[in-house]
Protein backbone atom coordinates (compact mmCIF):
# COMPACT_ATOMS: atom_id res chain seq x y z
CA UNK A 1 0.00 0.00 0.00
CA UNK A 2 2.61 2.37 1.16
CA UNK A 3 4.95 1.65 -1.73
CA UNK A 4 2.10 1.98 -4.16
CA UNK A 5 1.32 5.42 -2.74
CA UNK A 6 4.93 6.46 -3.01
CA UNK A 7 5.01 5.33 -6.65
CA UNK A 8 1.84 7.33 -7.40
CA UNK A 9 3.24 10.45 -5.71
CA UNK A 10 6.48 10.10 -7.62
CA UNK A 11 4.51 9.99 -10.86
CA UNK A 12 2.70 13.17 -9.85
CA UNK A 13 6.03 14.86 -9.10
CA UNK A 14 7.44 13.77 -12.47
CA UNK A 15 4.34 15.09 -14.21
CA UNK A 16 4.71 18.41 -12.36
CA UNK A 17 8.34 18.66 -13.50
CA UNK A 18 7.42 17.70 -17.05
CA UNK A 19 4.72 20.35 -17.05
CA UNK A 20 7.41 23.03 -16.65
CA UNK A 21 9.00 21.92 -19.94
CA UNK A 22 7.97 20.86 -23.36
CA UNK A 23 10.50 19.13 -25.61
CA UNK A 24 10.53 20.51 -29.16
CA UNK A 25 12.34 18.63 -31.91
CA UNK A 26 14.77 21.51 -32.35
CA UNK A 27 15.14 25.17 -31.50
CA UNK A 28 15.93 27.51 -34.44
CA UNK A 29 17.61 30.13 -32.22
CA UNK A 30 19.83 27.45 -30.73
CA UNK A 31 20.62 26.05 -34.17
CA UNK A 32 21.61 29.53 -35.29
CA UNK A 33 23.82 30.06 -32.25
CA UNK A 34 25.51 26.68 -32.79
CA UNK A 35 26.16 27.39 -36.42
CA UNK A 36 27.59 30.85 -35.62
CA UNK A 37 29.80 29.33 -32.98
CA UNK A 38 31.12 26.65 -35.36
CA UNK A 39 31.91 29.30 -37.96
CA UNK A 40 33.76 31.37 -35.36
CA UNK A 41 35.71 28.31 -34.24
CA UNK A 42 36.64 27.47 -37.82
CA UNK A 43 38.07 30.97 -38.23
CA UNK A 44 41.72 30.86 -37.21
CA UNK A 45 41.81 34.60 -36.65
CA UNK A 46 38.93 34.48 -34.17
CA UNK A 47 40.38 31.40 -32.51
CA UNK A 48 43.83 32.97 -32.08
CA UNK A 49 42.98 36.59 -31.37
CA UNK A 50 39.75 36.30 -29.34
CA UNK A 51 40.23 33.04 -27.44
CA UNK A 52 38.78 34.42 -24.19
CA UNK A 53 35.66 35.81 -25.85
CA UNK A 54 35.18 32.61 -27.80
CA UNK A 55 35.38 30.62 -24.56
CA UNK A 56 32.65 32.79 -23.05
CA UNK A 57 30.54 32.20 -26.16
CA UNK A 58 31.18 28.45 -25.84
CA UNK A 59 30.10 28.48 -22.18
CA UNK A 60 26.94 30.40 -23.07
CA UNK A 61 26.19 27.92 -25.81
CA UNK A 62 26.71 24.99 -23.43
CA UNK A 63 24.28 26.58 -21.05
CA UNK A 64 21.71 27.03 -23.80
CA UNK A 65 22.25 23.46 -24.97
CA UNK A 66 21.75 22.18 -21.46
CA UNK A 67 18.62 24.22 -21.00
CA UNK A 68 17.27 22.78 -24.22
CA UNK A 69 18.17 19.16 -23.39
CA UNK A 70 16.74 19.67 -19.90
CA UNK A 71 13.56 20.64 -21.65
CA UNK A 72 13.43 24.21 -20.35
CA UNK A 73 10.91 26.65 -21.72
CA UNK A 74 11.40 27.74 -25.30
CA UNK A 75 11.59 31.35 -24.17
CA UNK A 76 14.41 30.44 -21.78
CA UNK A 77 16.26 28.43 -24.44
CA UNK A 78 15.76 31.25 -26.94
CA UNK A 79 17.09 33.73 -24.41
CA UNK A 80 20.19 31.65 -23.66
CA UNK A 81 20.74 30.97 -27.38
CA UNK A 82 20.50 34.71 -28.04
CA UNK A 83 23.14 35.38 -25.36
CA UNK A 84 25.40 32.73 -26.96
CA UNK A 85 24.88 34.16 -30.43
CA UNK A 86 25.74 37.71 -29.28
CA UNK A 87 28.82 36.40 -27.46
CA UNK A 88 29.99 34.76 -30.71
CA UNK A 89 29.50 38.08 -32.49
CA UNK A 90 31.45 39.85 -29.74
CA UNK A 91 34.29 37.33 -30.14
CA UNK A 92 34.33 37.95 -33.89
CA UNK A 93 34.41 41.74 -33.50
CA UNK A 94 37.14 41.47 -30.90
CA UNK A 95 39.20 39.32 -33.27
CA UNK A 96 38.67 41.94 -36.00
CA UNK A 97 39.83 44.67 -33.64
CA UNK A 98 42.94 42.73 -32.63
CA UNK A 99 43.80 41.98 -36.25
CA UNK A 100 43.47 45.66 -37.13
CA UNK A 101 45.68 46.59 -34.18
CA UNK A 102 48.29 44.10 -35.36
CA UNK A 103 48.08 45.64 -38.83
CA UNK A 104 48.62 49.05 -37.26
CA UNK A 105 51.73 47.73 -35.55
CA UNK A 106 53.03 46.23 -38.81
CA UNK A 107 52.24 49.39 -40.74
CA UNK A 108 54.09 51.40 -38.12
CA UNK A 109 57.15 49.27 -38.65
CA UNK A 110 56.78 49.57 -42.43
CA UNK A 111 56.43 53.33 -42.12
CA UNK A 112 59.56 53.58 -40.00
CA UNK A 113 61.44 51.51 -42.55
CA UNK A 114 60.27 53.72 -45.39
CA UNK A 115 61.15 56.87 -43.49
CA UNK A 116 64.59 55.50 -42.87
CA UNK A 117 64.93 54.63 -46.55
CA UNK A 118 63.73 58.11 -47.48
CA UNK A 119 66.28 59.71 -45.20
CA UNK A 120 68.99 57.47 -46.61
CA UNK A 121 67.90 58.43 -50.09
CA UNK A 122 68.02 62.10 -49.22
CA UNK A 123 71.50 61.73 -47.83
CA UNK A 124 72.55 59.81 -50.93
CA UNK A 125 70.98 62.41 -53.18
CA UNK A 126 72.74 65.21 -51.30
CA UNK A 127 76.02 63.36 -51.63
CA UNK A 128 75.40 62.75 -55.31
CA UNK A 129 74.52 66.36 -55.99
CA UNK A 130 77.64 67.45 -54.11
CA UNK A 131 79.70 65.09 -56.20
CA UNK A 132 77.99 66.30 -59.33
CA UNK A 133 78.69 69.92 -58.38
CA UNK A 134 82.31 68.99 -57.81
CA UNK A 135 82.47 67.24 -61.17
CA UNK A 136 80.84 70.23 -62.84
CA UNK A 137 83.34 72.55 -61.22
CA UNK A 138 86.17 70.34 -62.40
CA UNK A 139 84.65 70.17 -65.84
CA UNK A 140 84.33 73.96 -65.94
CA UNK A 141 87.93 74.28 -64.89
CA UNK A 142 88.96 71.84 -67.60
CA UNK A 143 86.92 73.74 -70.13
CA UNK A 144 88.45 77.03 -69.05
CA UNK A 145 91.86 75.44 -69.29
CA UNK A 146 91.05 74.10 -72.75
CA UNK A 147 89.69 77.49 -73.82
CA UNK A 148 92.85 79.14 -72.59
CA UNK A 149 94.95 76.62 -74.47
CA UNK A 150 92.84 77.18 -77.56
CA UNK A 151 93.24 80.92 -77.19
CA UNK A 152 96.99 80.47 -76.81
CA UNK A 153 97.04 78.22 -79.84
CA UNK A 154 95.09 80.66 -81.95
CA UNK A 155 97.38 83.43 -80.75
CA UNK A 156 100.32 81.35 -81.81
CA UNK A 157 98.62 80.61 -85.11
CA UNK A 158 97.97 84.28 -85.63
CA UNK A 159 101.58 85.02 -84.89
CA UNK A 160 102.67 82.25 -87.25
CA UNK A 161 100.32 83.54 -89.93
CA UNK A 162 101.70 87.00 -89.41
CA UNK A 163 105.20 85.66 -89.71
CA UNK A 164 104.22 83.75 -92.79
CA UNK A 165 102.59 86.80 -94.27
CA UNK A 166 105.72 88.74 -93.41
CA UNK A 167 107.84 86.05 -95.02
CA UNK A 168 105.62 85.96 -98.07
CA UNK A 169 105.80 89.70 -98.31
CA UNK A 170 109.56 89.46 -97.90
CA UNK A 171 109.71 86.78 -100.57
CA UNK A 172 107.48 88.80 -102.82
CA UNK A 173 109.57 91.85 -102.34
CA UNK A 174 112.72 89.74 -102.83
CA UNK A 175 111.27 88.28 -106.02
CA UNK A 176 110.29 91.73 -107.15
CA UNK A 177 113.77 92.94 -106.41
CA UNK A 178 115.23 90.01 -108.29
CA UNK A 179 112.98 90.60 -111.25
CA UNK A 180 113.98 94.23 -111.34
CA UNK A 181 117.64 93.24 -111.22
CA UNK A 182 117.12 90.58 -113.87
CA UNK A 183 115.34 92.98 -116.16
CA UNK A 184 118.10 95.52 -115.73
CA UNK A 185 120.72 92.92 -116.52
CA UNK A 186 118.86 91.60 -119.52
CA UNK A 187 118.51 95.13 -120.77
CA UNK A 188 122.22 95.54 -120.35
CA UNK A 189 122.71 92.37 -122.44
CA UNK A 190 120.52 93.82 -125.19
CA UNK A 191 118.30 90.78 -124.80
CA UNK A 192 115.12 90.59 -126.84
CA UNK A 193 112.03 88.89 -125.59
CA UNK A 194 110.82 86.18 -128.00
CA UNK A 195 108.40 83.23 -127.88
CA UNK A 196 111.32 80.96 -127.01
CA UNK A 197 112.57 83.18 -124.21
CA UNK A 198 115.14 85.95 -123.88
CA UNK A 199 117.50 86.01 -126.84
CA UNK A 200 120.86 87.73 -126.82
CA UNK A 201 122.29 88.27 -130.33
CA UNK A 202 126.01 88.62 -130.86
CA UNK A 203 126.42 90.24 -134.25
CA UNK A 204 128.91 89.55 -137.07
CA UNK A 205 130.93 92.62 -136.15
CA UNK A 206 132.06 90.90 -133.00
CA UNK A 207 133.73 88.13 -134.98
CA UNK A 208 136.58 88.42 -137.48
CA UNK A 209 135.48 87.69 -141.04
CA UNK A 210 135.32 84.00 -141.66
CA UNK A 211 136.81 83.42 -138.21
CA UNK A 212 135.22 81.92 -135.24
CA UNK A 213 137.22 83.85 -132.60
CA UNK A 214 135.40 86.57 -130.72
CA UNK A 215 136.63 90.09 -130.87
CA UNK A 216 137.09 92.02 -127.67
CA UNK A 217 133.67 93.71 -128.13
CA UNK A 218 132.10 90.27 -128.41
CA UNK A 219 133.98 89.24 -125.32
CA UNK A 220 132.28 91.96 -123.31
CA UNK A 221 128.89 90.59 -124.29
CA UNK A 222 130.12 87.12 -123.33
CA UNK A 223 131.34 88.41 -119.95
CA UNK A 224 127.97 89.92 -119.22
CA UNK A 225 126.27 86.66 -120.22
CA UNK A 226 128.59 84.61 -118.01
CA UNK A 227 127.92 86.89 -115.07
CA UNK A 228 124.21 86.57 -115.69
CA UNK A 229 124.35 82.76 -115.90
CA UNK A 230 126.44 82.58 -112.73
CA UNK A 231 123.92 84.73 -110.93
CA UNK A 232 121.00 82.54 -112.05
CA UNK A 233 122.38 79.01 -111.83
CA UNK A 234 119.04 77.39 -112.59
CA UNK A 235 119.02 78.86 -116.06
CA UNK A 236 120.64 77.20 -119.09
CA UNK A 237 121.52 78.56 -122.51
CA UNK A 238 121.26 77.28 -126.08
CA UNK A 239 123.89 78.84 -128.37
CA UNK A 240 122.85 78.88 -132.03
CA UNK A 241 125.13 79.96 -134.94
CA UNK A 242 123.89 81.39 -138.27
CA UNK A 243 125.52 82.65 -141.51
CA UNK A 244 124.45 84.46 -144.66
CA UNK A 245 123.92 82.69 -147.96
CA UNK A 246 127.36 83.58 -149.32
CA UNK A 247 129.67 80.61 -149.71
CA UNK A 248 129.02 76.89 -149.79
CA UNK A 249 126.43 75.45 -147.56
CA UNK A 250 128.94 73.11 -145.98
CA UNK A 251 131.39 75.84 -145.08
CA UNK A 252 128.55 78.01 -143.74
CA UNK A 253 127.35 75.12 -141.61
CA UNK A 254 130.84 74.58 -140.26
CA UNK A 255 131.36 78.27 -139.61
CA UNK A 256 128.06 78.64 -137.76
CA UNK A 257 128.91 75.63 -135.58
CA UNK A 258 132.40 76.86 -134.84
CA UNK A 259 131.22 80.31 -133.88
CA UNK A 260 128.60 78.88 -131.58
CA UNK A 261 131.24 76.60 -130.01
CA UNK A 262 133.59 79.54 -129.69
CA UNK A 263 131.01 81.49 -127.67
CA UNK A 264 130.38 78.43 -125.55
CA UNK A 265 134.07 77.94 -124.84
CA UNK A 266 134.40 81.57 -123.89
CA UNK A 267 131.48 81.32 -121.45
CA UNK A 268 132.80 78.03 -119.97
CA UNK A 269 136.18 79.71 -119.56
CA UNK A 270 134.52 82.31 -117.45
CA UNK A 271 133.38 79.66 -114.99
CA UNK A 272 129.91 78.57 -116.18
CA UNK A 273 129.29 74.81 -116.11
CA UNK A 274 129.64 73.25 -119.60
CA UNK A 275 126.56 71.09 -118.95
CA UNK A 276 124.40 74.19 -118.85
CA UNK A 277 125.35 75.19 -122.39
CA UNK A 278 124.28 73.52 -125.64
CA UNK A 279 125.30 74.61 -129.16
CA UNK A 280 123.86 74.20 -132.63
CA UNK A 281 124.98 75.46 -136.06
CA UNK A 282 122.24 76.20 -138.55
CA UNK A 283 124.38 77.55 -141.48
CA UNK A 284 122.42 79.89 -143.66
CA UNK A 285 119.02 78.76 -142.42
CA UNK A 286 116.68 81.03 -140.44
CA UNK A 287 117.82 84.37 -141.86
CA UNK A 288 116.58 87.42 -140.00
CA UNK A 289 117.00 89.68 -143.04
CA UNK A 290 117.38 89.46 -146.84
CA UNK A 291 120.66 88.23 -148.26
CA UNK A 292 120.41 90.58 -151.29
CA UNK A 293 122.34 93.44 -149.80
CA UNK A 294 125.31 93.77 -147.47
CA UNK A 295 123.33 95.16 -144.58
CA UNK A 296 120.92 92.25 -144.65
CA UNK A 297 123.69 89.71 -144.94
CA UNK A 298 125.48 91.28 -141.97
CA UNK A 299 122.37 90.87 -139.87
CA UNK A 300 122.09 87.23 -140.85
CA UNK A 301 125.66 86.47 -139.71
CA UNK A 302 125.15 86.13 -136.02
CA UNK A 303 125.18 83.97 -132.88
CA UNK A 304 121.99 83.87 -130.82
CA UNK A 305 122.09 82.84 -127.21
CA UNK A 306 118.62 81.73 -126.00
CA UNK A 307 118.31 81.87 -122.23
CA UNK A 308 116.18 79.19 -120.65
CA UNK A 309 113.45 79.87 -118.12
CA UNK A 310 113.99 79.20 -114.43
CA UNK A 311 113.40 75.47 -115.03
CA UNK A 312 116.32 75.21 -117.48
CA UNK A 313 114.08 74.49 -120.49
CA UNK A 314 114.61 76.11 -123.89
CA UNK A 315 111.81 75.78 -126.38
CA UNK A 316 113.07 73.98 -129.49
CA UNK A 317 113.16 75.81 -132.79
Amino acid at each position, binding site marked *: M*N*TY*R*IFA*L*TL*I*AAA*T*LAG*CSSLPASNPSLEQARSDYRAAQDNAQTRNLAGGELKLAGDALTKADKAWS*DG*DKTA*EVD*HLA*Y*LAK*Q*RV*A*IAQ*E*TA*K*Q*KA*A*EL*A*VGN*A*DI*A*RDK*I*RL*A*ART*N*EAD*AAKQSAEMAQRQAEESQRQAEAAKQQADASQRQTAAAQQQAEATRQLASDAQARNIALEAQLKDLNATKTDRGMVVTIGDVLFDTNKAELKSGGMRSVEKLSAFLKQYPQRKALIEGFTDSVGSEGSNQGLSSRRADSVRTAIVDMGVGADRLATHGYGEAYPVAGNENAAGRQLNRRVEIILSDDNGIVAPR
Partner: protein
Amino acid sequence: MKTQCSTKPLHTAQRIALPALLTAMLLLISACASTPPPTEQVAVSTSAVASATSAGGSDVAPVEMQMARQKLDRAKVAMTAKDYPLARSLSEEAQVDAQLAEAKAHSTQASKAAYELRESVRVLREELDRQTK
Protein backbone atom coordinates in the same frame (compact mmCIF):
# COMPACT_ATOMS: atom_id res chain seq x y z
CA MET B 1 16.80 27.58 -10.11
CA LYS B 2 16.88 24.07 -11.46
CA THR B 3 19.16 22.92 -8.64
CA GLN B 4 16.67 24.28 -6.23
CA CYS B 5 13.86 22.50 -8.03
CA SER B 6 15.46 19.04 -8.21
CA THR B 7 16.63 18.29 -4.63
CA LYS B 8 15.34 16.11 -1.83
CA PRO B 9 12.09 14.36 -2.67
CA LEU B 10 13.15 10.72 -3.46
CA HIS B 11 15.07 9.34 -0.40
CA THR B 12 12.54 10.15 2.20
CA ALA B 13 11.62 7.47 4.75
CA GLN B 14 8.28 5.82 4.36
CA ARG B 15 6.71 7.17 7.55
CA ILE B 16 7.19 10.80 6.89
CA ALA B 17 6.75 10.33 3.16
CA LEU B 18 3.45 12.01 2.54
CA PRO B 19 3.75 15.30 4.51
CA ALA B 20 7.40 15.66 3.43
CA LEU B 21 6.55 15.15 -0.22
CA LEU B 22 3.75 17.64 -0.05
CA THR B 23 5.98 20.21 1.60
CA ALA B 24 8.63 19.56 -1.04
CA MET B 25 6.13 20.05 -3.88
CA LEU B 26 5.00 23.32 -2.36
CA LEU B 27 8.57 24.52 -1.96
CA LEU B 28 9.38 23.50 -5.51
CA ILE B 29 6.45 25.38 -7.02
CA SER B 30 7.05 28.50 -4.97
CA ALA B 31 10.80 28.39 -5.89
CA CYS B 32 9.93 28.28 -9.59
CA ALA B 33 7.67 31.30 -9.24
CA SER B 34 9.70 33.68 -7.12
CA THR B 35 13.19 34.73 -8.26
CA PRO B 36 15.26 37.23 -6.24
CA PRO B 37 15.46 40.69 -7.90
CA PRO B 38 18.43 40.83 -10.37
CA THR B 39 19.66 44.18 -9.04
CA GLU B 40 23.28 43.32 -9.70
CA GLN B 41 22.63 42.21 -13.28
CA VAL B 42 20.72 45.41 -14.04
CA ALA B 43 23.61 47.46 -12.66
CA VAL B 44 26.11 45.54 -14.78
CA SER B 45 23.97 46.04 -17.90
CA THR B 46 23.52 49.76 -17.19
CA SER B 47 27.25 50.14 -16.90
CA ALA B 48 27.77 48.13 -20.15
CA VAL B 49 25.38 50.42 -22.02
CA ALA B 50 27.13 53.52 -20.66
CA SER B 51 30.52 52.13 -21.63
CA ALA B 52 29.36 51.26 -25.16
CA THR B 53 27.90 54.74 -25.55
CA SER B 54 31.10 56.44 -24.55
CA ALA B 55 33.04 54.11 -26.91
CA GLY B 56 30.98 55.50 -29.81
CA GLY B 57 28.64 52.52 -30.18
CA SER B 58 25.72 54.75 -31.24
CA ASP B 59 27.52 55.76 -34.43
CA VAL B 60 29.04 52.42 -35.36
CA ALA B 61 26.36 49.95 -34.19
CA PRO B 62 23.13 51.95 -33.84
CA VAL B 63 20.93 48.81 -34.07
CA GLU B 64 22.66 47.03 -31.19
CA MET B 65 22.75 50.20 -29.13
CA GLN B 66 19.06 50.78 -29.68
CA MET B 67 18.25 47.21 -28.68
CA ALA B 68 20.44 47.42 -25.60
CA ARG B 69 18.82 50.65 -24.42
CA GLN B 70 15.29 49.41 -25.07
CA LYS B 71 15.91 46.11 -23.30
CA LEU B 72 17.49 47.88 -20.36
CA ASP B 73 14.51 50.22 -20.14
CA ARG B 74 12.11 47.28 -20.29
CA ALA B 75 14.18 45.44 -17.66
CA LYS B 76 13.85 48.43 -15.33
CA VAL B 77 10.12 48.52 -15.95
CA ALA B 78 9.97 44.78 -15.19
CA MET B 79 11.96 45.40 -11.99
CA THR B 80 9.41 47.95 -10.88
CA ALA B 81 6.66 45.46 -11.71
CA LYS B 82 8.58 42.84 -9.70
CA ASP B 83 8.73 40.55 -12.75
CA TYR B 84 12.26 39.53 -11.88
CA PRO B 85 12.80 36.65 -14.36
CA LEU B 86 11.88 39.00 -17.23
CA ALA B 87 14.02 41.76 -15.74
CA ARG B 88 16.95 39.35 -15.53
CA SER B 89 16.75 38.00 -19.05
CA LEU B 90 16.12 41.46 -20.56
CA SER B 91 19.03 42.98 -18.73
CA GLU B 92 21.26 40.01 -19.64
CA GLU B 93 20.41 40.56 -23.31
CA ALA B 94 20.92 44.31 -22.93
CA GLN B 95 24.38 43.57 -21.56
CA VAL B 96 25.51 41.41 -24.50
CA ASP B 97 23.94 43.82 -26.99
CA ALA B 98 25.83 46.71 -25.43
CA GLN B 99 29.03 44.66 -25.34
CA LEU B 100 28.64 43.77 -29.02
CA ALA B 101 28.07 47.45 -29.88
CA GLU B 102 31.21 48.39 -28.00
CA ALA B 103 33.25 45.60 -29.67
CA LYS B 104 32.03 46.83 -33.04
CA ALA B 105 33.00 50.39 -32.16
CA HIS B 106 36.48 49.28 -31.15
CA SER B 107 37.01 47.07 -34.19
CA THR B 108 35.79 49.80 -36.54
CA GLN B 109 38.11 52.33 -34.96
CA ALA B 110 41.05 49.93 -35.17
CA SER B 111 40.25 49.08 -38.80
CA LYS B 112 40.06 52.76 -39.63
CA ALA B 113 43.39 53.41 -37.96
CA ALA B 114 44.95 50.46 -39.79
CA TYR B 115 43.57 51.69 -43.10
CA GLU B 116 44.82 55.22 -42.53
CA LEU B 117 48.24 54.01 -41.53
CA ARG B 118 48.45 51.67 -44.52
CA GLU B 119 47.42 54.57 -46.70
CA SER B 120 50.09 56.83 -45.26
CA VAL B 121 52.64 54.06 -45.76
CA ARG B 122 51.52 53.75 -49.37
CA VAL B 123 51.88 57.51 -49.89
CA LEU B 124 55.30 57.47 -48.28
CA ARG B 125 56.37 54.57 -50.47
CA GLU B 126 55.16 56.36 -53.60
CA GLU B 127 57.08 59.45 -52.57
CA LEU B 128 60.15 57.37 -51.98
CA ASP B 129 59.79 55.71 -55.38
CA ARG B 130 59.48 59.13 -57.02
CA GLN B 131 62.58 60.30 -55.17
CA THR B 132 64.49 57.25 -56.27
CA LYS B 133 63.52 57.90 -59.89
